[in-house]
């Protein structure tokens, strides 16, 4: 039997549609709370702390942190959806078991959950993007490419979350994941200041976490600064997403079909 990503057919979209259908009936509960954190970041860092910082890397602070706030909005939404959300569907509601008793495979369920987490990340980060645009942060047409990057960043973190979700025996392990990885990633990845401030070993760790590449790519789009470092960053952003998705899909397969 084919395994992993190669075995995934378009049947995964049927599960994605199920999630979308549920989301739309509850959209009020889903959209506004998700915007609270990014809006808080805009006020606290961009406008609050930002008023004490003249410039960072030659631009007003809010313009510097805007890609960081966008990246965080995308990955946090995807992470919540594919940790607690997916775990709830898998373990508490047994929804996945019902689904894989049909022609839809476990790998397709994994793929659908990742795609759905990515979709939610895209929705939230796009709303944040609109708010930032109203604040006059963007000056270059290249910002129109930002949703592509936030979608990919959300996809990447959704895949990491599914790897965790499909491996843990109880929900409490998510505490370690959030404290040990998600929270540090939010602040270590060049979101609020350049990672060149860190000692070398920490910089290496930051570059391994794909969010650093995503934020840097977004920053070069918002500031219209094209540098050679974009090439390895893009390769790592895309490559890690594919590798992580493959691992996540296989992991879900192992979890659901013993």
């Amino acid at each position: 039997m084919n395994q992993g990503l190669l075995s995934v057919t378009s049947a995964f979209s049927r599960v994605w549609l199920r999630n979308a259908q549920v989301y739309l009936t509850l959209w009020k509960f889903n959209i506004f709370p998700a915007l609270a954190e990014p809006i808080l970041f805009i006020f606290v860092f961009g406008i609050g702390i930002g008023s004490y910082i003249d410039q960072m890397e030659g631009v007003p602070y809010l313009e510097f942190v805007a890609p960081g706030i966008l990246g965080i909005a995308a990955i946090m939404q995807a992470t919540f959806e594919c940790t607690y959300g997916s775990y709830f569907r898998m373990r508490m509601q047994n929804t996945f078991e019902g689904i894989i008793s049909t022609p839809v495979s476990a790998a397709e369920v994994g793929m659908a959950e990742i795609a759905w987490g990515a979709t939610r990340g895209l929705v939230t980060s796009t709303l944040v993007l609109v708010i930032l645009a109203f604040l006059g942060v963007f000056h270059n047409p290249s910002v129109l490419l930002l949703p592509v990057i936030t979608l990919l960043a959300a996809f990447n973190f959704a895949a990491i979350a599914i790897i965790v979700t499909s491996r843990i025996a109880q929900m409490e392990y998510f505490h370690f994941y959030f404290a040990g990885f998600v929270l540090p990633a939010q602040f270590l990845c060049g979101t609020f200041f350049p990672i060149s401030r860190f000692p070398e070993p920490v910089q290496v760790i930051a570059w391994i976490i794909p969010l650093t590449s995503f934020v840097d790519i977004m920053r070069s789009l918002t500031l219209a600064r094209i540098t050679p470092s974009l090439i390895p960053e893009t390769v790592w952003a895309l490559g890690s997403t594919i590798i992580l998705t493959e691992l996540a899909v296989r992991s879900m397969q192992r979890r659901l079909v013993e």
Partner: protein
Amino acid sequence: MIVEAKSLHKRFHDVVAVESLDLAVERGSCYGLVGPNGAGKTTTMRMIYCLNRPTSGRLSVFGLDVLKEPRRIKARLGVVPQDNNLDPDLSTCRNLEVYARYFGIGRADAATRCHELLDFMQLRDRADSPIPALSGGMKRRLVIARALVNNPELLILDEPTTGLDPQVRHLIWDRLLDLKEQGITLMLTTHYMEEAQKLCDRVLIMDHARAVAEGSPTELIREHVSPYVLELRAGRTLNAHITSRFGHMEHRSSGQNLYFYGGSPDEFDDLLAAYSQMERLLRPSSLEDVFLKLTGRDLRL
């Protein structure tokens, strides 16, 4: 054969769930798996609907290998799992429609099918109810309706009526017999021997991961127990007294009760005359007697 297993094994880490199992289910028949908790019934069913992978042996459904063609197999069967796994985020009718979509059934066909099935399972008035508002019996009927959404050739039911009231149980039995009449093959597990006896053409008794006996309910009764049973509720002290007098007859004692077995009702005449005051029941043997004889009365801990 719709389902065929040859020396089927399933191991979870170091636990053997199913061992050397052979079974064959004929098209259009109803096949029952019975056995104490932990005997391996659910694992066997889950291997058939491709949610557990056999460790060794051969298992084919519709002539297709479960390891190679799970998608084609699952497209043609319906599953009623032991625990209801309805989608609590969707209403009754949406549950069926969304489930139909997993089979690739189009929106219009799904809507028609949804109404047919809600009628069939007498849930028509509940089409828009949220799942948590349904009673246990309604949920079970809805799970059965959902399993029929793709017009399956084989319907797998893992304890379809456990914990339900007699009205719902009889409704479900009626519907299952309707389905059988339509030519659908049924496979079920149950703890109710009455259910197995009523519905099943063949029954497989499992214990400790293995098959213990197989046959039609009447064959099993004929082969393994005497045709009649006399149950006496004598109490522990009297039990010893009775067995000292009638110990030559085939009997078994179990706590407060004594069971005597005989080929015809008049074999019990002397016994009944001697203890005419005692609470007693003379009845034909049932599948339950076979079950208890073959799997013992000990609780599974």
